[in-house]
């Protein structure tokens, strides 16, 4: 059925406010540029809001929205002749479920900030050069006066330490283990 009005059982503004950041980040992690992610985030909500929809539970809704975003992303790649690596996307979904939880990544970002402070100054500098200053591995190596391979190892180790730190923090915090219910909420499907 073509666009029907949404059921009054949920608030569209609230839905967008709650999930837009998560969807935008998810699309960015799929490989979209910032502006592409914004457009696809918009398309995701427009698509979902076109059809009857019931917002039962935030985690399940987030998973459903990601699935729609995922499909739109695949369409987008096909239209623009980009290569789609399905395996990587599935792997990414699994990682997303593991790390991001149901708060669109707010907790992960906070944990990451705490854990980042625990890194050595040299590792912090390397990551800053990479992610803030957008330096290449070779440029980082020159600044830090180490080899290119050394710079790569330094950053990989730093990221491993960050992951381990976050894992420890997530275990000590109250786990939120609700499994995303990917069964659709779309009453039409």
């Amino acid at each position: 059925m073509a666009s029907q009005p949404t059921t009054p059982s949920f608030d569209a503004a609230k839905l967008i406010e709650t999930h837009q950041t998560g969807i935008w980040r998810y699309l960015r992690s799929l490989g979209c540029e910032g502006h592409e992610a914004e457009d696809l985030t918009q398309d995701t909500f427009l698509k979902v809001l076109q059809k009857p929809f019931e917002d039962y539970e935030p985690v399940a809704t987030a998973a459903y929205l990601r699935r729609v975003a995922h499909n739109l992303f695949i369409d987008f790649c096909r239209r623009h002749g980009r290569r789609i690596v399905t395996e990587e996307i599935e792997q990414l979904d699994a990682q997303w479920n593991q790390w991001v939880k149901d708060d669109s990544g707010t907790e992960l970002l906070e944990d990451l900030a705490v854990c980042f402070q625990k890194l050595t100054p040299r590792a912090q500098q390397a990551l800053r050069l990479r992610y803030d200053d957008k330096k290449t591995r070779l440029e980082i190596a020159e600044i830090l006066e180490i080899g290119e391979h050394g710079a790569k190892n330094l950053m990989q180790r730093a990221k491993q330490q960050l992951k381990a730190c976050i894992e420890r923090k997530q275990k000590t915090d109250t786990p939120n283990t609700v499994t995303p219910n990917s069964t659709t909420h779309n009453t039409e499907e």
Partner: protein
Amino acid sequence: MSDKPDPIFDLFLEELLSEQTPPDLSARILAAHQQKTAPKAQPPKVATIANGVAIAVAASNSDPCDSNTKVVSARTKARKARRNRFAISMSLSLVLFLAIGGLSYWGVTNFVIPGDQPIADNDPQKDPQKDPQKDPQKDPQNPIETNQDEQFVQVNPDVSPIETNQVTPDTRVPKETTQVSSNNTKPAVVQATLAVAKNQPSATLIQSDEQVIQEINTLIAAAWNESDIQPAKAATEEEWCRRTYLRLLGRIPTVDELKKYTSRRPKDKQTWLVDKILSDKTYTEEFASYWGARWANVLVGRAGGMQKDSPIDRESLEQYLASHFAKNTPYNYVVQELLTATGSTTPDAKDFNPATNFLVSMLDDKATLATSKACEVFLGQRLQCIQCHNHPSNDWQQNRFWQLNAFFRQSDSKKNLDSKGYRIADHDFSGEGGDANSTNSKRANPNGAEVYFEELNGRVQVAYPRFVDNTEIPRSGKLSEVNRREQLASLITTSNLLPKATVNRVWQHFLGIGFTVPVDDMGPHNPPSHPELLNNLADHFAASGYDFKRLMKWITLSKAYGLSSQAPADQFANHPELNYPQASGQLFARYYSRQMEAEQLFHSLTMVAKSSNKPLNIIADARDRQQWLGQFARKMGDDEASEDTSFNGSISQSLEMMNGQLMYKATNKKNGVLQGVISSKMNPAEKVDHLFLAALSRHPSKKEKKAIQQILQKRQHELDLSLQDIWWALLNSNEFILDH
């Protein structure tokens, strides 16, 4: 250790370390959702502001591509008309063939010319005002000889072309076909024009500025009375000051400039400000820079010269125009230079001529683009459609286009072999049927250098240079006998259409809508809203020696320009912009609000990002400006040099406004206005007041003050950040981007 990419971690690390935050898309998505679900019959591109005044947000009223809809519509009509005409012409041809075969035979014997001659002569049968073939003394096969007996345009060098141009077109007796004689040097009419143009004191305007302004007010008021419409109240002095800076200098006023204006005594303060901007040396460079860029948009479009492979050196063109605006060179002289320019576009070439940048991209194989653009810009007439068929809604015929086109056929534009630039050169033109390189006189066309075009019925016609007022020039294509572009320039600069087209365009710049919509499509099919005013102003402009600054002064000091943008509650009739681009019913009973042009927004943001109060330091770097503007304009790549703009409330514009680099600079605590406010000793309320003046040229209302006070109280310990947020919100408000 795994070297696999880790997109989730990479993303969050990037966000954390570069202090990025995900965008808030709620408003955008909801708006898009509402638009999708709302009924479709809403007027396009119309926003509503709080006071209930509907505002058209068309990007630039002057942009020719703004009226694409109209052009497309015209094309559709033309196609239908073409089919109808074809069917009718076929039937008529059959009947005529059977009924008056003898007459057809006579026609063929008279039209067919041996050798390379065209199948039929161009248009005498279409020109009801002059038909040389009906003159028994004239030999149809040798029009040059026969035309020598016709009345020539006698140009007396002692008489100013401006003086000869004082008769308004509507009162003129339809001009018979006239012919300008050729000579071995510059034609007399060209010499006369150049002499007048270079000699500025030759202006013959008798009326004072005050009298012209009074005349404008009287004629505008007469239209209000006829329509029984009450004009809006006068704009506040802050509103008037803001719009005047925007329209004359392309930016909003600084707080100092605003206070200086408002603190003056009421008497003649508007005249004082206009004179100051137009004449004071402190503003000369800024004024010239803005108008140079503005007029470059008119000549080559906003996207012209923006691409790397473009033959146009936009910077040179803008500088060239700016130098003329700075000197207030008579406009007819500039037009003359632009139309006759030869030489290279490359600044380091020996024969560098920046004026060549106007035509350099348009003198292609048949120079059709040069023809249509020159007519649009200087005559205010759109002739593209009659390139292929007769005009669908007036009596302009196809030959009109090709007769004008013939003026450009002695010129071409080629890429320099030794440099990156292009060069315009004139050369002998032997006609499309002749041999351009032949020195054999037998192969040369004795009737002159012709241009062929094909009518819809497949019949090939021929055209020779003839101006829109039917003035002919010698048909020879030899440069030694006649320089066609110089002849055209002289005809245009002495035509009454040039001042009319210019006045209409400048009026549209200041008032939002021209006397015709669009401004470059004047003609019997699109009569002006105030014909008498347009004619009178055009006459005054020509008589003033094509003085641009005086024209600007007349318009900015008129009553219509000084009205509020808010219509009285009971005035529903005076919203012509709601129907844009098919606006009609413009009575100028209020100031028509519109979105700032991209240039104005750029200059305004650049100004508030710079800390100096000295106007000279406010001028933005031309390359920065071009780079910033380039993101909003692109060529459509069609044969009409149309452009598309995304500076019309698009996503890219919104993003640029919300978090673009320029906005970042403008709202940086270490830059410009915000830095000055934060580091000042003013109390918080005064600081907020200053920010309002800087962005909106007004003080905050009571309601706004109350809301801001609440924000400041909640964030007492971070006053700087609060001010930064307020400043960002002001610059992103509808009111800021509107010229109202």
